[in-house]
């Protein structure tokens, strides 16, 4: 006798956890399958966790959720060869009793999620790889096959939260392989260091955190970004670029990361820290136009597997949690109404997504991935020119300011031409409006 559940959730990342918890809390019989040794073993995140979406699912998460630091300062840096131009935003208002953003260590959070899921009666099984979806003759998904002995399990509905690789949907012909220009590869390290040093170097108190988002020369003209985040007793540093750019280039990702760590403005911040783990992960970057089919007879797809990532704002885990919750709520509502999980009924999930910030934000930035991919000057020429302009402007050398202005303008024009500059401005506006 094959065991049957109301729902099977594949994957114990942010989206799968949100879906499983939401379903279990409403009393549904839900099974969550995770291929890792423990929840989080296969997951990689920067990571910044946004409180608002988690709060919707677990309102009192702050009581015991193992967060690192709440973020009081956001820096955005444009790196040149040996310099940077940047903006910082810091506010005491972020020191509220309910902070908006936290730095986290992914594996700690996913273990915590596992406990929360057990508390509300969800069943989470690790060390189990789902090998394929089981479909009835009509094509409806009715369960999954796993690599365990007798590993066939049935459910009324299957939620795929298996991450950016999304092998199950691809194998079942429900999704195409991601194009190299629609996914980034990011590599990162966690560096352990005395918390006192973190506090001194970043000018913060215990529990307060700083995040630095980085663009510029460190991505070697490729479309990409880097980051440096403060955890409690560690820093995470990482860099990622579009896979199409890595493919056309000659710099391996780990060399790019080494160069970032050696950059003169980054090095003093991480000096003396001890590297304890090196991770790599793909990030969906194709935006609105790369979102695959999201539901069908007996199935839905959520999180990274659904390509839900807002690259412009570096938001991913909140879209994951929100989509997982919405998929679960769709199941709960259909069950309460005594309806089945046909494609036409599960269209309600898509409606929820469309009405939410997820699809609204992805739609707003729908032109951004294509424009960035096709206009490398935003990652090569401009960081060069802007940092050089700053260097010129802030060097006091008895050259009059009007001449300096002229030099800077001429340098930009030489690099991009007047029409080029105008065109780039138009492209930037098109990309974000």
């Amino acid at each position, binding site marked *: 006798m094959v065991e049957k559940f109301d729902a099977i959730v594949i994957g114990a990342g942010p989206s799968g956890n949100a879906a499983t918890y939401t379903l279990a809390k409403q009393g549904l019989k839900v099974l969550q399958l995770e291929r890792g040794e423990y929840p989080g073993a*296969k997951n990689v995140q920067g990571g910044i966790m946004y409180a608002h979406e988690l709060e919707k699912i677990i309102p009192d998460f702050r009581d015991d959720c193992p967060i690192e630091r709440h973020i009081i300062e956001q820096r955005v840096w444009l790196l040149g060869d040996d310099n940077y131009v940047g903006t910082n935003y810091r506010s005491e208002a972020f020191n509220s009793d309910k902070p908006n953003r936290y730095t986290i*260590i992914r594996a700690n959070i996913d273990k915590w999620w596992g406990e929360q899921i057990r508390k509300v009666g969800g069943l989470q099984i690790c060390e189990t790889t789902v090998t394929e979806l089981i479909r009835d003759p009509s094509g409806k998904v009715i369960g999954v096959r796993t*690599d365990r002995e007798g590993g066939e399990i049935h459910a009324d509905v299957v939620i795929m939260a298996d991450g950016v690789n999304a092998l199950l949907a691809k194998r079942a012909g429900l999704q195409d392989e991601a194009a190299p220009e629609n996914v980034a*590869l990011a*590599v990162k390290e966690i560096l352990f260091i005395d918390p006192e040093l973190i506090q001194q170097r970043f000018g913060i108190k215990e529990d307060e955190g700083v995040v630095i988002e980085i663009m510029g020369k460190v991505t070697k003209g490729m479309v990409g970004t880097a980051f440096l985040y403060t955890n409690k007793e560690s820093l995470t540093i990482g860099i990622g670029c579009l*896979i199409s750019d890595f*493919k056309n280039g000659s710099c*391996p*990702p780990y060399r790019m990361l080494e160069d970032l760590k050696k950059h003169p403005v980054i090095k003093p911040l991480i000096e003396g820290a001890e590297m304890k*783990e090196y991770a790599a992960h793909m990030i969906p970057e194709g935006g609105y136009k790369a979102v695959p089919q999201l539901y069908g007879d007996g199935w839905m797809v959520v999180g990274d597997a659904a390509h839900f990532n807002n690259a412009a704002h570096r938001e991913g885990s909140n879209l994951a949690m929100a989509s997982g919750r919405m998929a679960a709520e769709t199941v709960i509502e259909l069950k309460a109404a005594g309806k089945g999980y046909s494609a036409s009924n599960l269209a309600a999930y898509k409606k929820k997504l469309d009405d939410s910030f997820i699809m609204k934000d992805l739609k707003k930035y729908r032109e951004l991935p294509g424009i960035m991919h096709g206009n490398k000057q935003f990652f090569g020429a401009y960081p060069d020119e802007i940092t050089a302009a700053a260097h010129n402007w802030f060097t006091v050398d008895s050259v009059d300011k009007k001449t300096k202005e002229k030099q800077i303008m001429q340098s930009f024009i030489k690099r991009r031409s007047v029409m080029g500059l105008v065109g780039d401005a138009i492209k930037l506006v098109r990309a974000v409006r």
Partner: protein
Amino acid sequence: MSIMVKVEEKLYQNRYIVDESRPHIQIKSVEACQTCEKQACTVCCPAACYSKNETGGVTLVTDGCLECGTCRVVCQDKGNIAWDYPRGGYGISYKFG
């Protein structure tokens, strides 16, 4: 080969549960790699699992694999990589992620 040494040092910090003699990624055709001009997998793989060999082809050792999927995306036009997840519980086991 200082770069190789560096990535090995990085991977050394990671926890792996190796599934002996059951690699989860395989090169389908040796010849297809030999005729591949770019062999981009040898540049893109963050764990340097792919290296150019003396026959003009590519050698794959999956022990340090981080299971990111980049090689599969990079090779999709040739379709010469059979990419699967390791068996449940095996492969990279991130302590921090």
